């Protein structure tokens, strides 16, 4: 597998603060890379450095073989970028927005028409061709942005929280589209907050306060030592009185960690404790299920973030 995006000790400082600190990434061609982290952890700054919008303080990065500092033009032609907020022109129609980006990438009139038609069909925005972009719903705006970003047929796509603020159906449709693009051999770099989205990515990286804490496939992340402390196992607990179960579980000496997921709890428990004992200790919360589980991606990041903040 060839590598499409590679960074070496990529760093951005504003004054004394390292927003992105010595980032090392290797992203393979044709994969979807999910980039996760809390707000303000350096996700957008990383994307902006890779797109040539922000120059790195130190370190290096290359995208599709082009150095982001020395060969900005090469990078610009190789990538498509969809920013966090809607960044097309609301007063221009769908077709005019596409026309503008076609011209911006200096496509000749014939291929401009062809690419506009193809991308409008692919994303489904062709039926709104003469409608002003601001009148579209959130999901359709994102599809239009995607169509604009794809006009020049880039091999790499950067998507900064593409599904923020759109409804679940539109979100699923957009992801189907992203899988299709990756299936065609494109490399996708996607930031997201949503764990279920991250679980659909080929590989995932987690950035916290400028540091890349972990990266790998879901399997690799689940087996990280920091996620499963030695001598512990994870239990899934369903209880009618979830808050009672939460409070009770926290008071038990052999329970290391408790996280609430709706009506359920995830517990990290010493491996020498019998599940029967756990069930009886939580009886007053009307427990219905106690089950051993593998950590979810969210468990992974909760564990990694806690380990991090405990050190600090």
């Amino acid at each position, binding site marked *: 597998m060839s590598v499409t995006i590679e960074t070496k000790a990529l760093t951005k400082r504003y004054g004394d603060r390292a927003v992105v600190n010595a980032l090392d990434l290797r992203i393979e061609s044709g994969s979807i890379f999910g980039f996760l982290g809390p707000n303000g952890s350096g996700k957008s700054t990383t994307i902006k450095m890779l797109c040539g919008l922000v120059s790195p303080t130190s370190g290096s990065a290359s995208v599709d073989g082009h150095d982001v500092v020395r060969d900005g033009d090469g990078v610009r032609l190789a990538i498509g*970028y969809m920013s966090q907020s809607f*960044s097309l*022109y609301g007063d*221009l129609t769908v077709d005019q927005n596409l026309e503008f980006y076609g*011209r911006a990438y200096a496509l000749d009139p014939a291929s401009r028409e062809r690419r506009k038609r193809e991308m409008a069909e692919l994303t489904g925005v062709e039926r709104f061709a003469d409608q002003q972009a601001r009148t579209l719903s959130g999901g359709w705006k994102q599809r239009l942005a995607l169509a604009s970003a794809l006009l020049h047929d880039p091999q790499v796509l950067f998507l900064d929280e593409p599904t923020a603020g759109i409804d679940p159906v539109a979100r699923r449709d957009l992801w189907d589209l992203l899988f299709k693009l990756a299936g065609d051999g494109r490399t996708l770099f996607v930031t997201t907050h949503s764990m279920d989205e991250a679980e659909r990515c080929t590989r995932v990286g987690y950035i916290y306060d400028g540091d890349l804490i972990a990266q790998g496939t879901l399997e690799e992340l689940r087996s990280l030592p920091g996620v499963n402390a030695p001598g512990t196992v994870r239990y899934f607990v369903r209880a009618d009185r979830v808050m009672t179960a939460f409070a009770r579980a926290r008071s038990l000496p052999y329970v290391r960690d408790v996280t609430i997921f709706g009506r359920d709890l995830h517990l990290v428990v010493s491996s020498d404790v019998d599940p029967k004992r756990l069930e009886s200790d939580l009886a007053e919360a009307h427990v219905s299920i106690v089950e051993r589980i593998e950590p979810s991606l969210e468990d992974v990041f909760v564990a990694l973030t806690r380990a991090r903040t405990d050190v600090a």
Partner: protein
Amino acid sequence: MRRPFDLRGFGAVLYKELIHVVHDPTTLVLALALPLLQLLIFGYAINTRVEHIGTAYLDEDHGQIAVRVLDALRASQDFNLVYAAGSREQLHELIVADKVKIAIDVPPNFSADVIAGRPAQLQVLIDGSDSSIADVALASASSIGAALSAQLDPRMSVVPQLIDVRPRTLFNPSLRSANFLVPGLIGVIMQIITIFLTALAIVGERERGTLDQLLVTPIGSTGLMLGKIVPYAAIGFVDFLGVFAAMLFIFKVPIAGSALLLLVLAIGFLLAALGLGLLVSSVARSQLQAMLMTMGIMLPSILLSGFFFERDAMPWIMQLLGYAIPLTYFLEILRGIILRGAGLAELWPSVTAMLSLGLFLVIVASVRFARTTS
């Protein structure tokens, strides 16, 4: 890192900006109608009072009465005798070249005539371009003549006076303040409109979050800037034509020089004003900042460019600041062409300075822009 002076994407940006303009008819109407409205309001409203008017004199008499007249002029707050001319031709040239506003000619045998009790004429040439200066000069010269007459011969009644002040107004014989103010207003209004439009055009893009999306395309920094300002330069030029027509047909200010030359130089001035606007937009992070910076440029421009106050009467530091303002030069050009019938032969220093300043501003803005967008 983006290269400066990269013209790619000019056509694409121009295409998009033209659609913005067409899609926003309210702004377009405002941008075209406001200058005219402002001209009408200010053109009728503004009036000024002046002192220390630059004056040249020619003493062809060399008599004692001539000395008394010149001393009286020197003592007055209104005149500032800066040149002693050697001939009537030189006296006239000093006025045409705008070195002085007033020229006083003491004719031969002036003292002899006065001493002999014969009324003697004192010639006063007045540059009527600025009607307020002309008014003051006229009144002041007449009262000095009357006062001296009374001192020399108390028996003489008010008319005829011994010293007969004969004023002759050049360039704007009807002494209308509109003739002086309206050409200046054209420059001021054009600067307001163009700076605002360009300053907001790029900052607006930054604020709406659409700039990043533009900057990941191969559009060049200069292509982006030019594509954004050409529509506004066109609006600015239409504004110029509008207020220029209003000056000719509503305020009835005649144009003494070449209208064509003025049109060409107006384009040069637009370049300089757009350069200032671009500089603002390359520094400002929000539209509010851009507005405040524009205000910060506008007020000194109006005060220091010579639109209201004679630049000669300002402290040297203020005069120096005025040289950094494109409007200063354009005002000299406007008044020179419209009122005094000046051509390139007289105006070339202002023209060269204005064009160089404009080019300088555009280059600085372009380099700054290339840097801030990388």
